[in-house]
C-alpha cells in the first residue's frame, strides 16, 4: 500500500517532467534558431515584421518589476492578515472575514481585470503601479489562507509559554508563533509569488503591455505571461516557438527561485 502512496507522490514529479519535455521540446529549437543571447538580451520584440525580431528583455524586466511591486504591497498585508485571522480576530468577525478572504481567492482574474481597469487605471493609468496594486490584492487571499493554516498549526503551548513569561499578546504572536510557523509562511509567500508571476488575464488589462524597457513605475510594461497570451492565438512556426521559449524562460526562472527558497528553508530549519 505504501507503494501506491509513493506512486501518487511521484505523479507531481511525472507532471513536471512531462511539462519539461513538451516545453523544451517545442521551445528550445526556436530558441537556438533565434540565438539565446539575442533572445534573452534583445530589446526589440517585433514578431510580425519581416525579418522578425524576438528580444524578450523588456518582458523579463516587466515581469520582475510588476511581481516585485505586487510582493512589496501584497506580502506584508497578506502575512498580517493571516496573523489577524489566526490569532487576533474576534470569532464574530471571523465568521464573515474568513469566507470573504476565501471568496477573494475565487474571483476570476477577468473580473479583477475589469475592476482594475475601472478603479486603478483612471488614477494610475496603465502602469506597473496599477498592475502591482491589482496583483497585490489578488495574491492576498492565497497567502493569507495558507499562512493562516500554518500559524494555526503551531502548538498552543508555545503561545502559553511566551505569555507565562510576561510577554504581551502581540509580542507572543510576532516573536514566537510567527517564527515557529516560518516554513509554512514562507511556502505561502512562494505560492503567492507563483500566482503573481503566473497571472495573465488581469495584468494584460492594466499594465499597458508596451514591449519596451520601462524607466519609471508610472510607465506601462508588458510581462512575459502577457506576451504569451496576447500572441499565442495567432503565432505560427518560429513566432510560436519563440512564445513557447518564453514559457521555458518562465519555467526555469520559477524552478531557480524554488531551489533557492528550499535551500534557504533547509538552512533555517
Amino acid at each position, binding site marked *: *500500500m*505504501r507503494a501506491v*502512496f*509513493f506512486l*501518487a*507522490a511521484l*505523479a*507531481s*514529479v511525472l*507532471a513536471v517532467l*512531462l*511539462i519539461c519535455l*513538451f*516545453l523544451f521540446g517545442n521551445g528550445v529549437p526556436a530558441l537556438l534558431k533565434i540565438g539565446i543571447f539575442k533572445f534573452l538580451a534583445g530589446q526589440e520584440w517585433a514578431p510580425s515584421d519581416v525579418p522578425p525580431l524576438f528580444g524578450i528583455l523588456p518582458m523579463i524586466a516587466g515581469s520582475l518589476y510588476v511581481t516585485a511591486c505586487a510582493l512589496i504591497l501584497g506580502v*506584508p*498585508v497578506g502575512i498580517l*492578515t493571516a*496573523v*489577524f*485571522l489566526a490569532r*487576533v480576530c474576534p470569532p464574530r468577525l471571523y465568521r464573515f*472575514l474568513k*469566507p*470573504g*478572504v476565501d*471568496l477573494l*481567492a*475565487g474571483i*476570476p*482574474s*477577468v*473580473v479583477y481585470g475589469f*475592476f482594475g481597469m*475601472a*478603479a486603478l487605471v483612471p488614477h494610475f493609468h496603465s502602469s506597473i503601479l496599477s498592475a502591482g496594486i491589482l496583483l497585490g*490584492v489578488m495574491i*492576498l487571499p492565497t497567502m*493569507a489562507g*495558507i499562512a493562516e*493554516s500554518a500559524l494555526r*498549526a503551531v502548538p498552543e503551548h508555545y503561545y502559553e509559554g511566551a505569555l507565562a513569561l510576561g510577554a*504581551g499578546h*502581540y*509580542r507572543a504572536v510576532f516573536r514566537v508563533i510567527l517564527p515557529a510557523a516560518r516554513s509554512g509562511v514562507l511556502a505561502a509567500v*512562494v*505560492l503567492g509569488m507563483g500566482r503573481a508571476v*503566473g*497571472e*495573465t*488575464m488581469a495584468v494584460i488589462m492594466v499594465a499597458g503591455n508596451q514591449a519596451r524597457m520601462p524607466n519609471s513605475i508610472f510607465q506601462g510594461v508588458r510581462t512575459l*505571461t502577457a506576451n*504569451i*497570451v496576447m500572441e*499565442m492565438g495567432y503565432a505560427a512556426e518560429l513566432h510560436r516557438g519563440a512564445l513557447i521559449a518564453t*514559457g521555458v524562460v*518562465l519555467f526555469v526562472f*520559477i*524552478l531557480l527561485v524554488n531551489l533557492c*527558497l*528550499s535551500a534557504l528553508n533547509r538552512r533555517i530549519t
Partner: protein
Amino acid sequence: MKRISPSETFMAAITWAAALLTAGALLYIIGFILWRGVPYITPSLFAPVYNSINVSLLPALVSTVMMAVLSLSFALPLGIGAAVYLAEYARRGNRAVRLIRLAAETLAGIPSIVYGLFGMLFFVVWLGWDFSLLAGSCTLAIMILPLLLRSGEEALLSVPDSYREGSFALGAGKLRTVFRIVLPAAIPGVLAGVVLAVGRIAGETAALIYTAGTVAQIPPDVFASARTLSVHMYALSREGLHTNEGYATAVVLLLVVIGINVIAARIAGKIGGAHERV
C-alpha cells in the same frame, strides 16, 4: 489603566490595519461586481441554450461544475495519496521527499498560460483529444495538484502523534491508523485545500481557452468542447458587445464559489467529529 507597551499597540494597529485593508478591498470589489452585474441578471440568462442574442450562461455553469468535479476526481486521490506518503511514510530528509516537494513547489509556481501551452501541446494535439472537457480538466488537475498536496500534508502533519501511537498500541496496522484516525482528523485541513482548488478552477481562463476551447454548450460527453463561467465572461466581454451580461456572469460565479465554500465548511464540521459508523 494597565500600561500597554508602545510596541504592543503598534503591532495591534498594523495587524488591524492589514485586516481592514483586506476587508476593504474585498467589499470594494464585491460592491463593484454586484453594482455592475445584478441589474443584468435576467431569467433569460439561465435559458438552456446559448445563442448570440440571449447569451445564456447555463451551459457555462454546468460546464464549470463538470470541470470542477472531473479535475478534483483526478487530482484529489493523487494529492491526498502524495500527502499521506510525505507525512506518514517518508523519512524526513530522504532524497525522494526533497525531489517530490521541489516538483510540487515548481508546479505551484508555473503560470497558468504555460499550463495552457502544455495542455494544448500534450492533451489536445499529441493525445488527439482536441478541445475538450477532458483536456481542460486534466490540465486543471495538474494545476491544483500542488495546492491539494500542500494543504493535505499540512493537515496530516498537524494531527498529533499521540493519536497514531494510541492506534498502533491497540494493534491497528499502519493503513487502518491512516484511514480511520489520521485522515478523518485531517479532513478540515484537506477541505481548505479543496476550497482553494475550486476557487482556482472557477477563476481560470488562460489555461482553459487553449485546452477546453470556447464552445458555449452543455458538453454531451467528456470529449466535447465547453467553456466555464470565467471563460464565458472573458468571451462575452472580449468584443465589448455583452459586457453587462459579463458582469452578471461574474455575480453568478461568485455565488457558485460561495456555495462551494459553505458546503465544504459544513462537511468539515461534520466529518471533523469523525463518528465511525458500524
